[in-house]
């Protein structure tokens, strides 16, 4: 296992931060050795977590910030997104795949995070919510990483 590398950012509650976080996720996932499809999934999950934090959590409040961090240790990438909003209960978010919800305009963000990551955790803060996204490197990616060192 390589030494963990961690970077963190304190970001404004703007749409620009969402786009910037998505770009950073793509870049960091690429450096970590994930394949193209997996990188796309990781950056989408990070984008959705940021939208959740900025739109639903901080509600674009210019005073509130979002903390974003990426940590990789050669075996997995751990991304955390923390907002300062009023929080929510993940279990109460309706299932977007239920027939009665299929034609709803919103409510797919958490589903997409779970679809593309190996683990998604929510922690209630006071105030705010911390979302942790984890993606493990597959054996073929670990082999590639080893071959390049």
């Amino acid at each position, binding site marked *: 296992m390589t030494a963990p590398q961690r970077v963190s950012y304190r970001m404004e509650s703007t749409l620009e931060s969402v786009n910037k976080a998505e770009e950073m996720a793509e870049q960091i996932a690429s450096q970590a050795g994930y394949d193209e499809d997996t990188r796309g999934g990781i950056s*989408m999950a990070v984008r*959705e977590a940021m*939208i959740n934090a900025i*739109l639903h959590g901080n509600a674009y409040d210019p005073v509130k910030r979002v903390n974003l961090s990426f940590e990789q240790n050669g075996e997995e990438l751990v991304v955390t997104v923390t907002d300062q909003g009023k929080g929510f209960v993940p279990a109460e978010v309706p299932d977007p*795949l239920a027939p009665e919800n*299929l034609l*709803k*305009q919103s409510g*797919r963000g958490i589903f*997409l995070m779970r679809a593309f990551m190996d683990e998604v955790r929510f922690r209630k803060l006071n105030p705010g919510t911390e979302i942790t996204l984890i993606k493990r490197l597959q054996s073929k990616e670990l082999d590639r990483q080893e071959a390049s060192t």
Partner: protein
Amino acid sequence: MSMKASTRQVDGVTIVDLSGRITLGEGSVVLRDTIKDLLGKGQKKILLNLGDVSYIDSSGIGELVSAFTSVRNQGGELKLLNLTKKVHDLLQITKLYTVFDVKDDEATAIAAFNK
């Protein structure tokens, strides 16, 4: 990259050629305004060409669903054309692939609208 939408008419069907990203913010707004404008003009047979749409997020998916229901509620039809693999996969996992009428050939898509 922002999104662009341009429209053309073929056999009574309005084809909307979209390019770029349908995401929270500008991309979703462009799509919403385009559909609103077409419905306002009474154009209710709409084919969204997504061949040059590189990326859609949850907000963009929501906007597609909203376009679909708005057109249907006004007695019209909305179909999707030329999905990229990424967009196709996204509609599959969100179970929307079967909700939308998806075509991969423009002539076939136009012929499939109720005349």
